[in-house]
């Protein structure tokens, strides 16, 4: 387990602000729209 654990322990830890932003309904509402647009554009590249 050591190989993974040492790498995980050095990974960037999100700050309290980042964690709050990930749950903020207004901000996430905007991200919902933005992500959907970005994903649809990407998906349509491989579709008929």
């Amino acid at each position, binding site marked *: 387990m050591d*190989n*993974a654990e040492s790498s*995980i322990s050095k990974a960037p*830890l999100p700050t309290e602000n980042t964690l709050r*932003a990930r749950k903020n309904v207004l901000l996430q509402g905007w991200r*919902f729209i933005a992500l959907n647009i970005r994903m649809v554009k*990407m998906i*349509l590249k491989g579709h*008929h």
Partner: protein
Amino acid sequence: MARVVILGAGISGHTAALHLRRMLKKEHEVIVVTPNSKWNWIPSNIWVGVGKMTVDQVTFALAPIYRRKGIQFHQALGVAIHPEGGPGHTKAYVDITYTDPTKLGEKATIEYDYLINATGPKLNFAATPGLGPDGNTVSVCTPAHAVEASKEFKAIVEKLKQGQRQTLVIGVGHGTCTCEGAAFEYTFNVEHELRQAGVRDLADVIYLTNEFELGDFGVGGMTFTQSGFETTSKIWTESLFRERGVKAILQAHVEKIEPGVIYYEQIDGTKNTLNFDFAMLLPPFRGVDLKAFDAKGQEITDQMFAPSGFMKVDANYVAKTFDEWRAEDWPSTYQSPLYANVFGVGIAFAPPHPISMPRKSPNGTVITPSPPRTGMPSGVMGKTAALTIADRIAKGVTAPAHVASMANMGAACIASAGSGMRNGSAAAMTMYPVVPDFQRFPGVGRSKQDTFGEIGLAAHWIKYLLHVMFIYKAKALPGWYLIPE
């Protein structure tokens, strides 16, 4: 009049059937043969597995949909393909055995002009002794498995509430498994539910995987651009593991599972054991036990199918080293090289090679994720085969095949990390293309514009939206075909 037979009604087969019925004139027949009576939106099974959804929320009966759309439905298992026909038949045909309770065990044959093999995977629990619901672990591969997983998980939560420390192991049960994304999702949904129940501090949650590093997901990992920096899915995923306190064991091939103990080998050849109170380990896949025979009745299964049981299509199956792999090796029409009227789509087609770099332990054990080809790519392949067949029926057999290679197709993976409309979370990842193309995208093999990842509540909403949209689409409700695969 032409007849199209589709074996399997998962994402690819069902998509193909609905599109064919929409595109073909009424005089042509579309026939679906599948052993299951219900359609299942498999990505939501992880929520059934933690008790956040019921089986009825992720499944629906196929028969009423097919009746409404004019698709013939046989609840039966496809047993053999006779692509050259045979005695008593003027056309190619398939042997089927009914699983429909009213005809259970009865055998029949169905002739076809075109055949789509969309039989999906055989859940190969037998590859690892003690793996699976008949052994010592649970699974979320089917709704029934997920219900069992949920019951066992609830029992673990009760023990935690009584103050008993518990170890929960979630991951894959063999060195060649695929679907690491599903294991990842279940890991973080379990972790989320433990926190919601107020018992997280007494639980050790361990992710056990055959991936060489976190964030591989069977696609060789991804490179994202975030806040002006390029970062890897490895660092991105490790960050989530650190934040949520989930441990990981990488590069592992599970050899066997005894009650409460997992025996596994790692890529360096070391052999270890891991004690557990709860284990959800996904099985490796192989092709279903479908056989093929020529006109004389001689078995040609080994010509039509790869040793893995998956059907050979228009891929380049010449053995190559990792450095020699090319995007063009991947199939684009899904047409059998032997029979132009037979197609293999979804998990049923044989991939030419993995996407992640292949690795073996010093003992010769292969520890490499198999390439994922579920979800969005499966649906696109089903539609592509349907478009080709519809064209050939309308314009003649020389009509060119439609193409959709996984090396020219994007995919979105919304990996749930906890359910809840206000406190849920998910990791939204997209990649384009699924199979890296290092000639087209030097360096990382994928478009930096279209390959990205983001964690948050919005991604959970998208995961839920996909659940609603794809069940709507699969029910063929008004405008269903406007929803992309």
